[in-house]
């Protein structure tokens, strides 16, 4: 079924501007606003699922019927629909969770409005076929997230939001300069035409510098290791559902997706850029995991672990780029499959982990692991879902994380890079240890005196956590069942293995 693509941006945008009108109209209007926001996220999820069953490989939508390159276009291909699905799942769960969780805060309609703006920005980034529109949507999503990180308005939260805003703006400026250089050197802002121009004239110094700016800018948004300083402050400071959105999908759409689209579809892969991504990925994996060990703040530990996990995704994609440039197409597509599958898996289990951390924080009033203990009996559902997510992130067999890591290891071995396979397994072990630490200190052991009276908050929060836990348990089917693999993952992998076909497909339509 072909969907008019701008609805993915229009629905959350209209919701974002409608919801603040309801603020200050009493309790009923407030719950109506919450209901509307939930309906919006659920309808986006349904549309994303419908988009998987479209009739063509690639769908191009010309806005206002102005043909490209004069007009602006939106493009839906396999990679975009995979990301749309991830955004749909995580935002639905986070919005369900917020229904109950955000009762602790004031100004709920403003929160809902910012949330919808962030979703609109992310969907826009994923669908945009125009470099400058990509930048505009990137800024919409980023600015909404700066405000959401500081939503609690405590000193610590405002400081984290300010730090995030400064570094995020630097990243945006890098991206804008990069886009300017591409425009100057190719004479077009349309991604397909830029790709065509770059691949006929080749990389000149200006374009190479633009690519470097994109790696730095999108790398900052994705929190790869030399650029990761903002993430461990920003993600724990946000309210839990927002942490889930930021770690689950925001760093992936604004960072990894945009970088991947630039490298694979516009600039074309080369051995140099492939190895650069591999090194960035490996450094992020190892450094993120080591930094996570020492954390005693539950959400901060999860944030460092996000850095490590994004490293896996970038490693898979970088390995794919290297192997593609060397002509090993089969192993390359396996590595890309591993990277993309890990991206989706991480979106699900990391957002679940952040939601469980929010549930723990709401019940106990603390994020410090040392002040918890024995919560298993008081918070049985939180404990179960957290254990499933931990098993999944550590790569224990039936759960989703195992399969994506296995694919990455197989791809690395197949390419003859045994040391990379060894590092993947080693970091996986580190991940297991750090999540055993969470289980041990938060859920097992003795219940402290002051936590004897706590209750688990259920209702919509429970629904959101169980939804994601079920997904975590059965996501392995996405690669194991051929039909699911062919509708969800393979189209996305094909977009990247034949990256330069993007221009041909878009212009040809």
């Amino acid at each position, binding site marked *: 079924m072909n969907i*008019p693509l*701008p609805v993915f941006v229009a629905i959350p*945008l209209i919701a974002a*501007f*409608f919801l*603040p*009108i309801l603020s200050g109209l009493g309790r009923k209007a407030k719950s109506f606003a919450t209901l509307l926001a939930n309906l919006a996220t659920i309808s986006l999820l349904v549309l994303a699922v419908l988009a998987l069953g479209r009739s063509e490989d690639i769908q191009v939508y*010309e806005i206002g*019927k102005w043909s490209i390159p004069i007009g602006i276009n939106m493009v839906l291909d396999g990679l975009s629909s995979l990301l749309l699905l991830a955004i749909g799942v995580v935002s639905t769960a986070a919005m369900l969770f917020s229904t109950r969780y955000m009762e602790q805060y004031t100004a709920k309609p403003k929160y809902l409005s910012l949330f919808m703006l962030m979703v609109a920005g992310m969907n826009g980034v994923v669908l945009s076929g125009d470099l400058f529109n990509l930048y505009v949507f990137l800024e919409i999503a980023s600015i909404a997230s700066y405000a959401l990180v500081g939503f609690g308005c405590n000193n610590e939260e405002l400081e984290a939001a300010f730090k995030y805003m400064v570094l995020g703006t630097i990243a945006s400026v890098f991206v804008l300069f990069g886009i300017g250089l591409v425009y100057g050197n190719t004479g077009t802002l349309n991604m397909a035409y830029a790709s065509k121009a770059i691949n006929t004239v080749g990389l000149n110094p200006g374009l190479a510098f633009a690519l470097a700016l994109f790696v730095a800018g999108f790398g900052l948004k994705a929190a790869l290791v030399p650029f990761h300083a903002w993430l461990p402050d920003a993600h724990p400071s946000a309210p839990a559902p927002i942490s889930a959105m930021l770690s689950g999908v925001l760093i992936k759409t604004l960072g990894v997706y945009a970088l991947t689209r630039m490298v694979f579809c516009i600039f074309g892969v080369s051995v140099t850029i492939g190895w650069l991504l591999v090194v960035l990925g490996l450094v992020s994996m190892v450094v993120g995991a080591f930094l996570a060990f020492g954390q005693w703040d539950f959400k901060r530990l999860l944030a460092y672990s996000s850095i490590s996990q994004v490293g896996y995704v970038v490693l898979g994609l970088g390995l794919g780029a290297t192997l593609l440039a060397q002509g090993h197409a089969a192993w390359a597509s396996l590595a890309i499959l591993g990277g993309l599958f890990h991206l989706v898996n991480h979106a699900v289990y990391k957002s679940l982990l952040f939601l469980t951390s929010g549930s723990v924080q709401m019940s106990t009033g603390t994020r410090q692991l040392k002040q918890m203990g024995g919560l298993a009996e008081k918070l049985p559902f939180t404990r179960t879902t957290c254990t499933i997510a931990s098993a999944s992130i550590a790569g224990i067999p039936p759960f989703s994380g195992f399969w994506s890591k296995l694919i990455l290891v197989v791809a690395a071995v197949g390419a003859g890079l045994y040391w990379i396979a060894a590092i993947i397994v080693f970091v996986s072990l580190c991940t297991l240890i750090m999540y055993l630490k969470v289980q041990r200190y938060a859920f097992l052991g003795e219940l402290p005196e002051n936590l004897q009276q706590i209750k688990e908050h259920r209702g919509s929060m429970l629904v959101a956590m169980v939804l994601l836990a079920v997904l975590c348990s059965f996501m392995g089917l996405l690669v194991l069942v051929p039909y699911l693999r062919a509708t969800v993952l393979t189209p996305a992998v094909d977009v990247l293995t034949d990256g330069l076909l993007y221009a041909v497909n878009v212009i040809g339509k």
Partner: protein
Amino acid sequence: MAANSSPSNGAKGMTVIVKTISSWVKMLIFLFGIYIIITGHLTPGGGFAGGVIIAGSYVLLMLAFGREFVEENLPLRWASRFDCIGALLFALVAVLGLILGGSFFVNWLFRQQILPSKALELVSAGTIPLSNIFIGIKVGASLFLIILVLSMFRPAHLRGEKE
């Protein structure tokens, strides 16, 4: 800002000269903003530029008469509603393009049988003037809100120094 040099003329705002002049000029600025918005499809300018000018007329009032005066004139809640309504109406124009013209942002009024018009007339160019008006409302209200909120904020060490 807001030098309190004329205590006889009320506690807030600048001197009587500034107040008198700005009370004359404010309407002119406001009207100029509207002019820029509604001729946006014919001359340079448009919704954004005109909206900024409209917000500018309120900022002039804020500088001359003080923040409280402006807040009585256009309460924060109403400014926020104008902001949202402007954006919603703009989105409505785009969505009507999908319903009536088959694609988002199609200029569905740009047909002689719906809206007979000649080039360079005030009523021409289909939905573009409408979009300009809605963007003008949105930009005017949101820029006004930004400056109002910035003027409300006082760092802790400056609080209580005035007033």
